[in-house]
């Protein structure tokens, strides 16, 4: 008997040690007497000293977090009714104000079907909860980052199943929604496209970055041209695939980033063409200058002086052409950088327009230019130098694209929205499908045959930017072989 008691005592001691080492508290609740007994470990978990716990059901609830109190009461009541085992997670506030997460496991003790009380264990799961919360927070942050980046992102397994994707990737490949992408195979995401590499070779899917990364276990980046099978629309996409290593040395998943660089590639192509054109445009006046200089030398050697002055005028004209060209190029750069500055002054438009037109007539009398300007003076705040550039551009264009000696009409009108200046010619006109295009930079690029004759197409681009900077707009109406009317509308 003594030995048994000793054994029981040591067994109890051992289990207490185990519970204490595992930070596990023990509790007992006698419903009849409303007496709750806590082990010292449980008091410690609640931040109490040994013997400090009051011992009633009410005392127990004193420490429970108000946010979890109702939930916990309902849980206990349900367990008592159903008379089964239960476990629950809840928060307590310990005396120093700190919040702890606890997990309690309980068992109902019954006698003849009546619940007498409960016994159970309880332990502190704050550290585990913190880790869970941190992981959830990190996951939420990552999801937010993935959703907010402009690049498309997918996570794929070895079978090519997409286990994660963001909105951007769905949009990029024209998928109706994100849910139409996730859990699908990557093949179905690409199904509407033919895919080519930079050498213009068709690329099968098993040669795409994800497949390569699963084999090589290393990052892989490549550039692809996606051509839509139906619309033939082209997209240049940089795909970067990164392995997510699983265990020692195998690739569990591959993260792919899709960057749409269509615009970058297109800009680069345009820049290359533009540089070629710039070279061409600058060389032409230089060629004339060199040729005239050669001619001057010939005439000086032969002592023929009568034509020298005329040749020098020609050289001067070509130098002016170069200056004009370089000025336009600088304007384009300024406009593209958003640095076009205006110096506006209040201007009597009536006499201003008359003066600009008469200056143009002096410089070039190839056409009959007539003006219609109202008697009542219209004032507007404009940058005169810049506006002169626009009017000159429009009239020069009218001269360039209509037969010599034909009529050009310049008129000024005022309406409720502001003031309008019209330049109308009786020339070749512009087909309707080009009305918008001709205001775009290097609009002549495209048809290579016409490159030479039409120049760089900077004039209307610059004109539109100047008018827009004034808060106005420039409109074209035209009929092929009847003529064109460009209208500048400015606020007064």
């Amino acid at each position: 008997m003594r030995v048994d008691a000793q054994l029981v005592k040591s067994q109890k001691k051992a289990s207490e040690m185990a519970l204490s080492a595992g930070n596990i508290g023990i509790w007992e609740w006698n419903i009849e007497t409303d007496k709750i007994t806590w082990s010292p470990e449980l008091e410690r978990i609640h931040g109490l000293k040994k013997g400090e716990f009051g011992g009633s059901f009410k005392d127990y609830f004193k420490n429970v977090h108000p946010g979890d109190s109702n939930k916990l009461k309902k849980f206990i009541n349900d367990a008592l009714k159903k008379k089964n085992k239960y476990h629950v997670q809840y928060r307590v506030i310990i005396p120093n104000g700190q919040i702890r997460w606890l997990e309690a496991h309980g068992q109902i003790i019954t006698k003849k079907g009546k619940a007498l009380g409960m016994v159970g264990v309880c332990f502190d799961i704050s550290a585990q909860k913190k880790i869970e919360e941190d992981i959830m927070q990190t996951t939420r942050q990552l999801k937010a980052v993935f959703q907010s980046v402009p690049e498309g992102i997918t996570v794929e397994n070895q079978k090519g199943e997409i286990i994660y994707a963001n909105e951007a990737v769905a949009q990029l490949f024209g998928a109706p929604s994100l849910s139409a992408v996730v859990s699908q195979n990557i093949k179905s995401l690409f199904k509407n496209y033919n895919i080519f590499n930079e050498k213009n070779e068709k690329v099968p899917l098993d040669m795409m970055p994800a497949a390569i990364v699963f084999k090589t276990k290393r990052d892989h980046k490549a550039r692809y041209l996606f051509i839509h099978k139906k619309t033939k629309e082209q997209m240049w996409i940089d795909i970067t695939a990164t392995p997510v290593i699983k265990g020692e040395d195998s690739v569990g998943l591959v993260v792919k980033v899709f960057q749409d660089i269509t615009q970058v590639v297109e800009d680069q192509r345009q820049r290359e063409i533009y540089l070629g054109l710039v070279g061409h445009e600058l060389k032409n006046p230089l060629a004339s200058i060199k040729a005239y200089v050669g001619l001057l030398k010939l005439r000086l050697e032969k002592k023929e002086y009568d034509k020298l002055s005329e040749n020098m005028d020609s050289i001067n004209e070509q130098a002016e052409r170069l200056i004009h060209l370089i000025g336009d190029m600088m304007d384009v750069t300024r406009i593209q950088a958003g640095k076009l500055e205006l110096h506006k002054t209040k201007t009597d438009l009536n006499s201003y327009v008359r003066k600009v037109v008469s200056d143009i007539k002096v410089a070039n009398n190839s056409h009959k230019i007539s003006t219609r300007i109202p008697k009542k003076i219209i004032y507007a705040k404009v940058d005169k130098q810049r506006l002169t550039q626009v009017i000159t551009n429009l009239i020069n264009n009218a001269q360039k694209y209509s037969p010599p000696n034909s009529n050009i009409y310049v008129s000024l009108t005022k309406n409720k929205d502001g003031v309008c200046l019209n330049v109308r010619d009786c020339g070749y006109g512009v087909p309707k499908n080009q009305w918008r295009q001709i205001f775009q930079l290097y609009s002549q690029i495209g048809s290579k045959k016409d490159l030479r004759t039409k120049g760089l197409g900077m004039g209307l681009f610059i004109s539109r930017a100047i008018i827009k900077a004034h808060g106005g707009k420039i409109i074209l109406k035209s009929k092929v072989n009847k003529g064109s009317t460009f209208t500048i509308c400015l606020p007064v």
Partner: protein
Amino acid sequence: MKKHVLVVDDDTAILDAISQTLEEKGYKVTGFSRGHLFLQFLESNGADLIILDMFLRGMDGREITKLIKKDKNKKNIPVLMISAQSGEVGSIAESGVDAFLPKPFDTLELLQEVERLAV
């Protein structure tokens, strides 16, 4: 008899400078800024040399050269192509031109080429 040179370039300044230079050196020169007018003239008048710019309004100097070189009556007329466009030497040679002078060129170079070709 003066050698007759046809100059075709839609840049009227260079057309004028080349024409005056060659006239100064004793050539008879006819200048054209439009390709089709040149072709009409060539058909009925012939020439001792053609100086042709590569890019003309709506016409390509290389295509014009091919036409000339295919025509048994004209294929012996030398063609000197000029252009500010660099990097197309291959297609220029293919068209069958007799010489190519990139713009801007030196007047002496031009005169040497003209003298060599217009025989």
